[in-house]
C-alpha cells in the first residue's frame, strides 16, 4: 500500500489496483507534480531527500488513522525520492471507498498529513542557486483542520 521509490509510477496502473472491488463506488486520487515556478522563481529541478525507515512508518501511521476515521477499501500512497524535473510526478494518493464523501475526505486528509508529518524535504534548483524549500503555513493550517 506504500511505495517510496526513485522511479516514476503509472497512474493508469495505480487506478487498476484501486478498482478491484465491486463494493467500492468511489475512487479519489491525488497526483502531485513538480511545478516549473515556485515563489516567483523558475524551478529547473528538485531533489527530494527522505528519512529512510521513518518515512514508511510515518506514512503507515497516516493511512492507519485514515482507515480508522473512514470506511475505506483500498489506500495506495507512492512518493518519489531523488532528482526530479518540472512536470514529473512526485506523489500519488489513491483511495477507494463505498462512498464519495469518505473517499474525498480520506484522500485530502492523507495529503494534508503527509505534507506536515512525513519526513521528506525538497531542495529546488533555481537561477538564484539551490535552496531548501520552506514549509508553508497553509499546509499546517490544512492539517490542523482534521484535529
Amino acid at each position, binding site marked *: 500500500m506504500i511505495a517510496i521509490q526513485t522511479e516514476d509510477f503509472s497512474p493508469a496502473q495505480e487506478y487498476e489496483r484501486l478498482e478491484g472491488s465491486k463494493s467500492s463506488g468511489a475512487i479519489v486520487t491525488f497526483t*502531485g507534480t513538480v511545478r516549473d515556478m515556485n515563489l516567483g522563481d523558475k524551478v529547473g529541478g528538485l531533489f*527530494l*531527500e*527522505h*528519512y529512510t*525507515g*521513518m518515512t514508511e*512508518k*510515518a506514512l503507515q501511521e497516516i493511512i492507519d488513522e485514515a482507515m480508522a476515521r473512514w470506511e475505506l477499501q483500498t489506500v495506495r500512497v507512492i*512518493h518519489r525520492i531523488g532528482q526530479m524535473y518540472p512536470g514529473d510526478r*512526485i*506523489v500519488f494518493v489513491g483511495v477507494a471507498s463505498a462512498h464519495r464523501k469518505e473517499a474525498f475526505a480520506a484522500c485530502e486528509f492523507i*495529503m494534508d498529513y*503527509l*505534507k*506536515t*508529518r*512525513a*519526513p*521528506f*524535504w*525538497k*531542495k529546488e534548483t533555481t537561477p538564484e542557486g539551490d535552496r*531548501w*524549500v*520552506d*514549509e508553508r503555513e497553509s499546509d499546517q493550517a490544512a492539517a490542523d483542520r482534521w484535529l
Partner: protein
Amino acid sequence: MIKVRFFASFREKLNCEQLTLQEGEYAPLLSALKSQLADQGEGWREVMMSERTLVAINQTMTRQDVTLRSGDEVAFFPPVTGG
C-alpha cells in the same frame, strides 16, 4: 550508545549526517542532549534552540522531553516539505 541523525538543511548547516554517542557521552534527557549539542557551536545552537526544529525518537516524532535509552535513534530535522 545512541545514534543522533540530522537531515536536509540541518545536515548541510552542521556538516554532519550522524553522530554516535557512547554511554556516558550523552545526557540521558532529550532536553539535556539538545543543550549539550547546542554547545558545539553557533550553527548547532541555532538548530537546537529553534522552535521549528522537529525531533524524532526511533523514527516517531515527539514534542515531549523523554529519557533516552541505549540503542535509541534521535533525529533532528527542519519542517517537512514533501508531497
